[in-house]
């Protein structure tokens, strides 16, 4: 039988918890007996410890009852703190598979709430977007755009742009010609620089509590991402 190869109870330390692997096919009374030995050896270390009871890969639902019984037994006998199922490692195993599915077809179901605008935004005009804002055109001096997420201007940015309003400091502002009068990201404000070259695409982001402007081609912040993801 397979059961004989696996010991009925195994105990090891994982992170800040005790990982207890039990063989769920054995009767509950035998498991309780087997648990006494390692937990007595732990002595005071068992008190208030976090315990994860692993019943193996299959039959997760049926073993809930077993985990609960063993958990209350351990709490009564050894004063352990917290008894849970081993959920986190399962999730990390699945992550890659989920992302691969994303790449395949998840984009089709994603409803974008960004705002795409074509044309020139003139002085005195104000455009507000709940999330991302993309302007196919120029933003003249005196014009103002406000977005909850990123602002991308495929043209010349000369007006005022406020991204990540009110408090998203991860937002960026990107323009092909970056000559703003003022930019805001989250709660940070920066005044435009008069002698900005504006010849290459640049973007602004928050780094170390300050707004930093960088060449978009050289300093592209999204190149580092391992997977394409919805922003």
């Amino acid at each position, binding site marked *: 039988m397979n059961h004989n190869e696996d010991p009925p109870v195994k105990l090891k330390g994982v992170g800040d918890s005790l990982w207890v692997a039990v063989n769920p096919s054995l009767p509950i009374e035998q498991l309780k007996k087997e648990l006494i030995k390692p937990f007595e050896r732990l002595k005071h270390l068992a008190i208030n410890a976090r315990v994860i009871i692993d019943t193996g890969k299959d039959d997760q639902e049926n073993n809930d009852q077993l985990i609960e019984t063993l958990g209350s037994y351990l709490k009564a006998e050894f004063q352990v703190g917290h008894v849970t199922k081993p959920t986190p490692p399962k999730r990390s195993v699945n992550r890659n598979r989920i992302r691969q599915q994303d790449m395949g077809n998840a984009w089709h179901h994603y409803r974008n709430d960004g705002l795409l605008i074509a044309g020139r935004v*003139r*002085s*005195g005009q104000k455009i507000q977007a709940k999330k991302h804002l993309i302007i196919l055109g*120029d933003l003249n*001096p005196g014009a103002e755009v406000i977005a909850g997420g990123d602002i991308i201007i495929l043209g010349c940015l*000369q007006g005022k742009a406020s991204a990540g309003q009110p408090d998203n400091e991860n937002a960026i502002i990107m323009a092909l010609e970056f000559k703003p009068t003022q930019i805001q990201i989250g709660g940070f404000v920066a005044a435009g620089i008069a002698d900005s070259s504006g010849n290459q695409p640049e973007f602004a982001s928050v780094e170390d509590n300050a707004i930093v402007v960088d060449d978009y081609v050289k300093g592209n912040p999204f190149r580092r991402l391992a997977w394409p993801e919805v922003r």
Partner: protein
Amino acid sequence: MDGKVIVVTSGKGGVGKTTISASLGAALAMQGKRVAVVDMDIGLRNLDVVMGLENRIVFNIVDIIKGKCKIKQAAIKDRRIDNLYLIPASQSDDKDTIKPENMIWLTNKLRKEFDVTLLDCPAGIEQGFKNSIAAADEAVVVCTPEVSAVRDADRIIGLLYAQSITPKLIVNRIVPKMVESGDMLSHEDVVEVLSIDLIGLIEMDDRVVVATNTGTPLILQEDSKAGMAMQRIALRLDGHPDLPIENPMIQKSFWKKLGSKFSRKN
């Protein structure tokens, strides 16, 4: 056929709206059109001074709208140029005295009498501006090569588009020498920001000061560059839209050109 109503506007003050209104009116009249120039700057009128008709004002635009007189009584005929009329503003009222509806009523009457009605819009975007654009068919935006003027013109253009009027651009007071040395915006820079059709470029001309102070029409001065530019703009406004736009440049003499060629080689 009904005439058309053209508003001359800029947003910023002091860029040359009044001078251009007076000169374009004179140029259009000399081309044989019946022209009315209306001063919309109620309370701060000066188109009458620029046109040299100040001493002949009896009735004004507010009198027409209040029904105190007829259009023919208020319109002052220019004695030097046939078919040119001025409807002066009132100096004692303010801009809230008339409303956009009044202007629509007035311009509908003017369209029947005149081929072209020019409205000299006051600076700003308040009541005077609203009155002026309410009734206009076309708009001419005047801008100088200054950052502040471009900013205001941009705002005005947005407001004109909101009224479904497609404006045309005049860049006024260009100093070719400063443009060449990079101290002044070029008209290309202005057009790049404003992105509307250009209808004329007017060079800085000292004669304009003399003409406006003495109330003599600029276009009657044969050798005035600004006057000639105005005449070409008038042609473009009325039936010759394809007349090429002349770019004001430094007129280098033959010897200077020759000298610069030799000096480059050495």
